[in-house]
């Protein structure tokens, strides 16, 4: 849309290869259809369940037992997503961007082939190309995985309640899904191969795990599934999962209605003909290395989003990179995308907001003697009356002593962590120091004043 603003002739090729179970979706990419949007809505559904429980302590009286209806929630969520898909179609049309629901792949210099779902092929040439094909969930490669397991691609439009669920993985996708499924009243188990939230501050990751465990989510640590079998067909059916220990020879078995795989995502770069135009990719990870102007090794081909090597896999990052690229190419702008100090939030039952370095990375980069960590537990006022945990919410900042005690890492674990973190991200971008933070008066009574 940005390039079209500058009078360039633009075309978008968007195509969703169906999941092993046949699921597909509309225009908008992962975030809109099978990522952030439905995730946050379902997380909200779970939070509302908790709020209903708390409400009794605040004086609300209701005698009926409150139930959750999966179909009602899913229908509402999918309806909203549908309106977003439609909104994008209208927006592209209005900005005169040509849209084709077809699978694009390079067939030669400056040329792509677009194949629609009926198999009809068309060729297009262009001056420049932008690849933003994103990623798809990885499967385990064990018997029964593609036939019986689901991924996040299937979960948000599942036409039946998943029931007793085994979530395989310890990524934020795994923990967020496990979190809201349990919040909706389902029996949830998380099977973890080694650590939680690799790449995130481990101190915070462990606190998240602890909280989830104390609130009814079972964790099976240091095991990996080796086989999934179907005991009974159904919606949901019954599945048997056999798992092996990563530290010994122990084998365990379990029965679940649904097995959700969330063990990682693989870049969609292997089947789009990159070899035909000479675009180098990291053979092991499938990611595309680019320079700081999002250009691949082939000058007329650019890439943004989750497929980039060593860049954060976040929607706002991809959007920003794309917009700035168009502005640099067609409007004479010079700003490059800033990948440092990008804030993000994990929407687990106890939300975690972060901007900047984890404690481990800060120590590694600056040396333990050069950083100072300030931290505090806090008890949200809203949690006092319903007697919810008084020592779980937590915040810490990491400061660089050598640079005026500049805040280089901000971490908060508590309700509305995303909202809290956003403001601090702006402050950190401006070079916030500990002294400035101390001299900022707090708003009372809110969690963020800590």
């Amino acid at each position: 849309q940005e390039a079209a603003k500058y009078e360039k002739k633009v075309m978008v090729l968007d195509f969703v290869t169906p999941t092993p179970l046949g699921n597909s979706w509309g225009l908008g990419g992962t975030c809109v259809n099978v990522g952030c949007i439905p995730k946050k809505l379902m997380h909200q559904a779970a939070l509302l369940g908790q709020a209903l429980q708390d409400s009794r302590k605040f004086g609300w009286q209701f005698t009926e037992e409150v139930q959750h209806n999966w179909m009602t929630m899913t229908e509402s969520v999918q309806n909203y997503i549908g309106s977003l898909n439609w909104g994008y179609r209208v927006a592209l049309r209005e900005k005169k961007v040509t849209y084709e629901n077809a699978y694009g792949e390079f067939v030669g210099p400056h040329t792509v082939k677009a194949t629609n779902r009926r198999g009809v092929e068309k060729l297009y040439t262009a001056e420049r190309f932008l690849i933003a094909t994103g990623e798809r969930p990885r499967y385990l490669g064990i018997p029964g995985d593609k036939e019986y397991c689901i991924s996040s691609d299937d979960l948000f439009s599942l036409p039946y309640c998943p029931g007793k669920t085994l979530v395989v993985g310890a990524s934020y996708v795994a923990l967020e899904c496990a979190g809201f499924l349990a919040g909706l009243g389902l029996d949830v188990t998380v099977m973890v191969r080694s650590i939680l939230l690799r790449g995130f501050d481990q101190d915070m990751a462990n606190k998240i795990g602890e909280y989830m465990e104390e609130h009814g989510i079972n964790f099976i640590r240091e095991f990996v599934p080796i086989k999934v079998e179907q005991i009974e067909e159904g919606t949901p059916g019954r599945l048997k999962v056999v798992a092996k220990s990563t530290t010994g020879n122990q084998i365990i078995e379990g029965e679940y209605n649904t097995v959700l795989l969330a063990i990682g995502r693989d870049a969609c770069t292997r089947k789009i003909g990159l070899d035909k135009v000479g675009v180098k990719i990291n053979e092991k990870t499938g990611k595309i290395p680019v320079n700081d102007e999002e250009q691949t090794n082939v000058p007329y081909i650019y890439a943004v989003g989750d497929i980039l090597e060593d860049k954060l896999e976040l929607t706002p990052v991809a959007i920003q990179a794309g917009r700035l690229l168009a502005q640099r190419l067609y409007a004479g702008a010079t700003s490059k995308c800033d990948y440092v100090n990008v804030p993000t939030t994990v929407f687990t039952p106890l939300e975690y907001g972060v901007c900047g370095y984890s404690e481990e990375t800060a120590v590694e980069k600056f040396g333990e003697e050069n950083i100072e960590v300030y931290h505090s537990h806090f008890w949200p006022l809203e949690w006092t009356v319903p007697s919810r945990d008084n020592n779980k919410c937590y915040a810490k900042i990491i400061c660089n002593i050598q640079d005026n005690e500049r805040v280089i890492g901000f971490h908060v674990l508590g309700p509305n962590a995303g909202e809290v973190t956003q403001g601090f991200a702006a402050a950190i971008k401006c070079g916030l120091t500990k002294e400035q933070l101390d001299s900022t008066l707090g708003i009372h009574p809110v969690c963020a004043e800590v």
Partner: protein
Amino acid sequence: MGWEEKQVRGYPEFVQTAQRYHGRPIFALFCGDKDAEGRSWCPDCVTAEPVVRKELHHMPDESVFIYCLVGDRAYWKDPNNEFRKNLKLTGVPTLLKYGTPQKLVEEECFKAELVRMLFTED
């Protein structure tokens, strides 16, 4: 078989007609009432109607096009009228594909390209 048009006035008649054709693609254009000379109180509806009518032949076979007059200006301005409450309409004219989130509102209905997209979208 092509497509057919049904003209209705008011919410209950609209719902009845939509239900009667359940199972077929249903497109609906909502406009303000017309006076004795056939002119609507809603100027945007006057502009949109010919644009929409010109694109009707793009609708898939078996489609039903419901042309619905919502009521007079006072009724429409009431924030609690049934169209606003139950169909979530926010303005007239509105052209929508019944049972889906796909719709075009106000000036969007003036654009033949968008209207065609609504009628032919999968």
